[in-house]
């Protein structure tokens, strides 16, 4: 099962490597990992997408909580939440493809944020599945470069992860 783990941790040097090291040392997988400081600069918020059985997820949560730099851990996928990922994708945009790329970006509600004579950079936000669909919808030969942020997630309504 796919899980989205949200972690609040001390914004200190080495905190990220403690979390990443834990995953590699214990053989847990990381599909995506994003991290940045929160509105409180002393805290970072990390989102990790991982896969595993309920037993593995229980261990992941417990092991994360054991790290001294970790303040709070929540499995977002346990309840209602929203998730988003940002992708920047550079595509070839020449000849008839130029119009086609514009149209595809519109259909997926992407925005073209860089234009040259032969390329577009399209910004697209959504669930990971939506970004995957966009990539699949394009002619693979026209994709020059992609960069994705990995998933960020937040609980719906009153579900708040805060110190």
């Amino acid at each position: 099962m796919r899980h989205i783990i949200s972690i609040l941790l001390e914004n200190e040097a080495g905190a990220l490597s403690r979390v990443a090291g834990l995953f590699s040392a214990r053989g847990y997988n990381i599909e995506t990992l994003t991290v940045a400081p929160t509105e409180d600069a002393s805290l970072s918020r990390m989102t990790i997408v991982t896969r595993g059985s309920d037993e593995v997820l229980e261990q992941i949560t417990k092991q994360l909580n054991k790290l001294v730099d970790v303040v709070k851990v929540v499995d977002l996928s346990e309840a209602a939440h929203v998730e988003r990922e940002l992708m920047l994708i550079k595509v070839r945009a020449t000849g008839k493809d130029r119009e086609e790329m514009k149209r595809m970006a519109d259909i997926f509600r992407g925005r073209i944020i860089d234009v040259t004579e032969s390329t577009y950079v399209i910004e697209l936000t959504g669930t990971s599945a939506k970004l995957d669909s966009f990539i699949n919808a394009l002619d693979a030969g026209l994709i020059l470069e992609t960069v994705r942020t990995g998933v960020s997630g937040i609980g719906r309504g009153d579900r708040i992860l805060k110190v």
Partner: protein
Amino acid sequence: MMITGAEIVIRCLQEEKVEHVFGYPGGSVLHIYDEFFKQDQVKHILVRHEQAAVHAADAYSRSSQKVGVALVTSGPGVTNAVTGIATAYSDSVPLVVLCGQVPTHYIGQDAFQECDTVGITRPCVKHNFLVKDVKDLAVTLKKAFHIATTGRPGPVVVDIPKDITANKCEFDYPKAVQMRSYNPVVKGHLGQIKKAVQLLQEAKRPIIYTGGGVILSDAAEKLTQLARRLGFPVTNTLMGLGGYPATDRQNVGMLGMHGTYEANMSMHYADLILAIGARFDDRVIGNPEHFGEEQRKIIHIDIDPSSISKRVKVDVPIVGNVPDVLDEMLKLLDEGFKADAGLADWWKQIDDWRGRDSLRYKQSDLIMPQFVVEKLYEVTGGEAFITSDVGQHQMFAAQYYKFDKPRRWINSGGLGTMGVGLPYAMGVRFANPEAPVACITGEGSIQMCIQEMSTCKQFELPVKIINLNNGMLGMVRQWQEMFYSKRYSQSYVTSLPDFVKLAESYGHVGMKIEKPEDVEPALRKAFTEYKDRLVFMDFIIDPTANVFPMVAAGKGLTEMILAEDL
């Protein structure tokens, strides 16, 4: 008044009432060593290798209730210390390891004796710190002691760059520290404890299974009270020996790979397991699938939630400090509850299993290693602190020396580090200056830290080294004999030194014992005539002796190989 970082280090150690620091000097820690020179409240014990410094600090802690402290220099000092740190981490021993580091402005430049201490030690510490400002030094050290000793204990590394030890600031040692990210649970959940007590009172085939957590949390007394009140059989893990008196009838002995027949059978066929400060690891329950074939309930008390339901599913998890939880249990037991009342059949079954006498061994014309341990037990009246290295001798020590008290059995159970025995004996002796200390070892293990005989001379430590010398890496040889068709690849140790002369050259007493009838007199002599000397006792033992019972790797607990089967 402004004082230097080096002075702050010493002042912090004094504030923490640290009496002994085990260490080895070097460039990055010279300022700190200069401060050691100027005071005598904190004693520095100079070892011969950084690994031994950490092992000694580790055993110092294991054999007392104090935190162990080690001090090493940067680079190779740290890498040498890593084995010691990882060993302590595996067995949850509270240590503070102070490491020198190159000056802050050199970090990352591949400076002389620089290594990424925080990175290298990260996977084998409870936590680590790099101090970047002398103003943070005192509070960081306070945090280090706090983290090392609370919750599930463990080693904490503090990496201190040389310029930090020269810089000055006001010294203010905090009385306590609050960390929003670190709040270990202490009290167990009352509802869970009630549920557990209910199960305990209904059990027909119960067993109490206890590990190192009982020793570390000083819960032996409470455990004994509870076990007696319940009348249940008790089994200890290798790390839990001494948590419940070994000579008590309710004790069915150690369980696991080399546990007794009765302990493993009772564990497997119990309908209720009360697990206390233990973690169902591979050396204890063998194959978890085989173990899971029996229907049973499990209550698991541990201070570390991640130890619960890690390898087996637990019905009643209780996260909390063991003595507090046991105390609650004692209070909640019905007054009318009678120990033994419904357990007659269970005890009869256990006594049947006991009848197999699974620790029986054949005498030979040569000295049997088991016999040496039995005699050591007799000669010391069971009162010695026993350290061991890793291998067959470790198992013989665990099986044949009966520990009635906690913190008397000091060994590397988790990591299984060869070479710990002698430095462990040193640490024990510093923490217990009057106590008899014996190091049960083999000719393989002892050579891994043999240089510490020099430290023992410098500090006149009257350790008794019981070298069970079979000229073989015995446990490796045993596995090769049993599972590799007797292809003894690299398990024969040739070119052994003359241990008697070696001991003498360090200024100690050496003895070579080759006949069974000489074992006891030699031991008596070592503990009387040479009471105040280190005695290296080289016992030439039967090289074919194997450790039984044995649950082979990947097998189930009931699939034991017994000596009588062969």
